[in-house]
C-alpha cells in the first residue's frame, strides 16, 4: 500500500478530503520526527513503539576484497511491535 492509498483510505474513514488527510499526515509526522530528534521515544498503544538507538562503531570486513573498514557510530530509528499486534498477525496463519 503506498502513500496515496493510505491517505485515501484514511480520508474515506474519516470523511475528510484527501488534502486534509495529507495535511494531518505531515503535521503528525513532523511532530513525531521532532520528538524523536530530541531523543524521545514514541509509543502507540497496541501498535508499537519507535525509539532512537545508538549503534556503536565497528570493524567490518569486505568479504571479497577482505578490506577492513571502521564504520563510525550512528543513531538509528527502531520500531518494536506490540505484543497484541504480534498476536494478531500470527493468529491468521
Amino acid at each position, binding site marked *: 500500500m503506498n502513500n496515496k492509498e493510505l491517505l485515501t483510505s484514511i480520508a474515506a474513514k474519516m470523511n475528510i478530503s484527501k488534502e486534509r488527510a495529507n495535511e494531518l499526515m505531515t503535521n503528525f509526522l513532523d*511532530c513525531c520526527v521532532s520528538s524523536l*530528534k530530541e531523543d524521545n521515544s514514541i509509543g502507540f498503544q497496541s501498535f508499537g513503539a519507535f525509539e532512537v538507538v545508538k549503534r556503536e562503531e565497528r*570493524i567490518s570486513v569486505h568479504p571479497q576484497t577482505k578490506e*577492513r*573498514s571502521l564504520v563510525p557510530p550512528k543513531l*538509528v530509528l527502531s520500531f518494536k511491535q506490540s505484543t497484541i499486534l504480534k498476536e*494478531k498477525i500470527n493468529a491468521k496463519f
Partner: protein
Amino acid sequence: MSKDKLSISEIIDMMIKKGNTGKREAEEFIKNLLATIEEALLSGENVKVKGFGTFKSQWNEARRSVDVNTGNDIIIPGFYRVVFQPDSDLREVINEPFAHLQTILLADDSVVSDEKNNVPDILSPAKDMDQSNEKADAGLSFFSAQAAEIKDILLDINALNKKSKNNTIVQEDEPIEIAENNNDNITHRLNTENQHNVGDTNNDSIIDPDDSITYLDDEEDNVDSTNQIITPITDQSQEFDIVRDVSLLYYEQDTSENKETGSVADEAHAIQPVINEEEEKISSIEDEDLSLVISKEQAEETSDEKEVVTMLSTDNDEAEAMNTDEATMSPETPEEPLFEPVHVTAIENNLNKEQTTDELKSVKIEDENDDKKEKKSKVPLFLLALSLLVASGVTAYFLTPYLNQIRKEKKNQKRLEYIADSLSTAKKVQQILDSISNLNTINTDTLPAADTTVVLDTLPSSLSEVKPTKPSTVQREEPQKNNASAEDIYSKPRKYTETLAVERMVAGSQLTKFARRYYGHSYFWVYIYEANKSKIKNPNNVPTGIEIKIPKLDSRLVDANSQESLNYALKLQSKYLK
C-alpha cells in the same frame, strides 16, 4: 535531550500546538492511520508512508533453540513480525549528531580500541609505536643508569680540574662553579698534589698559557652547562707518578687489545687514538636515531671506551654533554704537551668505563654460561632418561621367564594341593571299604585301589554320612565301577556334591577363568556351569554378584593334558552354547 516515552495523547498535543487541527480530529486521524496500517499488514501488504518509512510483515523461519526453564531442546516455530524501515531522509535527520563521521579503511595490522568516541581514531600506528618505544625504553634505562654513574665521575674530574685551575691561573675572574668533591680517591689525591706543587714553575711550562686562556673562553660560553667541562690539570711531577700508578692499575684490569707493556707514554699514545675515535663516534651517533643495535655492533670491537660512549649517547642529552666534553678535549689531544692531563682524564674515564664494561662483560658471560648450562643440563638429562628406559627394558626381558616360572609353580602347587586333598579322602574311603570288605565277602581286589576317585562322586562331603549308607551304595555301584573306564566317566551323569571353592561373580569374571584356575583348562567351565545350573541360566551371560560353587571333579574329567577329556568338555560346550 530527555529520553521520555511519549504517548498518543502527547503527540496529539503537539499536533494541536502546531495548529490547524483540533484534539478530536488529531486523535481520530492517528487511530485511523494505525488501523489502516494494521489492516494492510495483516493482509500481508507492505505500507509505505512518505517521509517516514515502510512497514512490512516479515516471516521468521522456525529455528532450534533451548527451553530456558528446562534446558531441553526446543523448536521455536515460525512467525510473522512487523518491521519498520525508515526512509533515507528520516535516517539523515535522526543521525544528525553523527552525520560528520565517515567510514575509514583500516591498515591490515591495526587494532582498534573499544573506546566509544564520536570521532573515529586512526589508532594503529600509535599503538605500534608505543610497543617499540617500551622496548627501547627498557634498554635505555639500563644504560642511562650507567651513564649517570659515568656522569658523576666526570663531574668529579671537572671539579678537580677547576680547583687546580683556580690554584694556578690567576687571571680568571669569572665565577666558575665547582663540582662537589666525591669520595673518589684519585681525584682527592690529585687535588692534594696540586696544592703541594703550586709554586713549581717547571711544570707550568708544560701547559701553554695561551691554550688555557682559550679554554677559559670556551668555558665562559659553557658556564651554564655546569660541570660538564673537563679542564686541563696543571701537571706536577708527583701527579705524574700517580698517573702512572693509576695507569698500571688500569693495565692489570685491561683485557682489550690495547695492552702494552712499559711506559706510560706508550699507553697514552694508545689511548689517544681511541679517544679520537670516541669523538668521531659521538658526533656520528648524535645524528642517528639511537638504538641498542649500535651499542651491540660496537660491543664486538675491542675498545671498552666505545661501548660506554655509545651507551651514553643513547640518551640524547648525555650525548650533547659529552660532545661538549670531547670538543673541549679535542684542542688538547693532538698536542703533545698536553697529553698528560688528557691522559689522566682518559684514564679516569677508562677506569670507570672499565668498571661498567666489566659489569657488562660479566653479565654477558653469565648469559653465556647460563645458555651453556642449560644446554649442558638438557643433554645429560636426556641421556639419563634414555639409559633408564633401556635398563628397565633389559630387566623386564630377563625377568619374564622367571615370572612365568613362578606363575606356573603356583598353579602346580594348587593342583598338587587339590590332588593331595583328594588322595587323603580317597585313602580314608579306602580304609572304610577295607573294613567293609572284611565284614562282607566282596572282593576288594576288584576295587581299584588307586581309583577311589570314582567313588568320590557319590560320596557326601562328611565322612560320618558315608558310613551308614556305604554298604548298599558301594555294593551296587561297585560292579559298575569295576569296569569303570574312561567312557563311563563321561557317560555317567555327574553329580556335584563336593565343592572346591565358592566364587562370587564380579564384573569381568568368567567361568572359563575359574576353570583355568581350578582345573587347568578353560574348557572345563562346562562342569562349573553344570554345578551351578540353577543359578546360571545362560552360560554366555552370567549374572554378576551371584555365588557359584567350583565343584570337585574327577581328575580324569578335568585332565588338561588328556585330549579325550578336552574333547568331551568341548562337546558339552557346544551343547550348552547353542
